[in-house]
């Protein structure tokens, strides 16, 4: 079995990318994923990951110019694709791993439990995700396929995959930031049920356009645990929600809650940091920018391999541009949605 360490890392990445290109014709499935400014040809096998790609990605506006990219979701059962190498005895430090690849124009990630490698050549816009089998990826990939590749590609353009939820009305929107369990997804689902728009509840694309901060959709999936599912009464819309995912949550799509689906984009006017308060009524109160950054940046940076300093700078700039507020969540979903809608109407609490 081949072992890789920092010294041979970039060579290994280039070898895998070349092997995928040489085996392109052997991949059983080829699909196109069209996202904001990006048209990705994805070469894969059949299976659950391919299904997630077909149903979980947000479609871009058709007329928008898009840069082509290619990503191979590979495993040793396809053509002469090699088995994934293992990491050697040398220290594995994610920061050093990223730095070594970045010095060679590459981005990458390794998940040792599954011998799972991802590499991306930023200049060629060429990526490989090497797994032991067709669906041999970490369980969270099914909710946000290609997440790391999108992170690397958009970061290279000065945009940012951001760990936040969104709600909007009339083209204006708020970002909902905070660690898992803060109430982002429940707030987004409540808003959608009440007629508000959203471009996503977990990962969204943020870009600066002059003085504006725009957010666009990448994924259409929403998640709720059993308690949230029951509290929001989602059973009447999703009588057969399927099985729970790796987090113990049901996974469904924005269009399951509202026929119009995800919004094309929202012009973000504020950053809200939700927290479950236990009080009957929701309340929006000012929040210091440093506290807003602490809510927004850490999880987004820790969950995305590489590009950590640029991420900190980006989130710093985003926090600096937007008014920041606490959102103390009430106990009823429709009341939360009314509170956010009223905030969007007034542009202030």
């Amino acid at each position, binding site marked *: 079995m081949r072992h890789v360490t920092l010294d041979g890392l970039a060579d290994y990445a280039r070898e895998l990318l070349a092997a995928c290109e040489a085996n392109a014709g052997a991949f059983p499935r080829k699909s196109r994923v069209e996202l904001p400014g990006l048209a990705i040809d994805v070469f894969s096998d059949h299976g659950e990951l391919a299904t997630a790609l077909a149903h979980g990605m947000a479609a871009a506006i058709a007329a928008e110019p898009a840069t082509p990219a290619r990503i191979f979701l590979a495993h040793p059962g396809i053509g002469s694709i090699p088995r994934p190498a293992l*990491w050697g005895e040398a*220290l*594995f*430090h*994610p*920061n050093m791993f990223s730095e070594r690849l970045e010095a060679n124009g590459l981005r990458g990630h390794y*998940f*040792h*439990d599954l011998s799972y490698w991802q590499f991306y050549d930023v200049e060629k816009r060429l990526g490989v995700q090497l797994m032991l089998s067709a669906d041999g990826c970490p369980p969270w990939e099914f909710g946000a396929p290609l997440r790391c590749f999108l992170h690397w590609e958009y970061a290279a353009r000065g945009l940012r995959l951001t760990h936040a939820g969104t709600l909007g009305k009339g083209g204006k929107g708020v970002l909902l930031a905070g660690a898992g369990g803060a109430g982002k997804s429940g707030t987004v689902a409540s808003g959608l049920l009440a007629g508000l728009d959203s471009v996503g509840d977990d990962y969204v694309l943020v870009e600066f356009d002059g003085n504006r901060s725009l957010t666009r959709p990448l994924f259409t999936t929403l998640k709720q645990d059993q308690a949230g599912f029951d509290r929001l009464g989602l059973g009447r819309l999703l009588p057969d929600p399927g099985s729970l995912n790796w987090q113990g949550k049901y996974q469904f799509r924005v269009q399951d809650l509202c026929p119009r689906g995800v919004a094309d984009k929202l012009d973000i006017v504020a950053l809200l940091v939700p927290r479950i308060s236990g009080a009957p009524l929701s309340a929006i109160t000012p929040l*210091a*920018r*440093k*506290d807003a*950054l*602490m809510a927004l*940046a*850490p*999880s987004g*940076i*820790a*969950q995305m391999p590489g590009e*950590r*300093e640029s991420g*900190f*700078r980006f989130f*710093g700039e985003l*926090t*600096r541009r937007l008014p920041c507020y606490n959102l103390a969540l009430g106990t009823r979903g429709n009341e939360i949605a009314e509170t956010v809608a009223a905030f969007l109407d007034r542009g202030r609490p």
Partner: protein
Amino acid sequence: MGYSTIYAVSSNDIVYETFDGDAVVLDLASGRYFGFSDSGSCVWEALIAQVPPASLVGRACGNGQLSAADLDAFIDRLTEYGLLSPATDMASVALSPELAQRLAATREALKIDMHDELADLVMVDPIHDVDEPAGWPAVKQ
């Protein structure tokens, strides 16, 4: 601590942003975040601008005067956390009137808060440091 010592940010892994006078620092290598009180933010800004501690002692700050002992303790924390190091080849810079004014207007004592909730996810060696049966991200104790 030498009161004439000039300090500098320890490495390129230390990055920081300032919002309305409040500093937030991230150590990219360790994944630890740091937040300061209002006076702590001013002193951090002064120190990384090469203002020697001697220029800060006795200044109005946080409803009192900045004592040598408090400043000592604060700089000790900054160096223990790996955020600041003595810089031997740098010239001292005078405290700017604007920063002196901000320091005088502060209301909180010198303080730094460290947040390391996500540090394991950023810095741990997931291959050699994790608890094998539990797998990543359960870190070996």
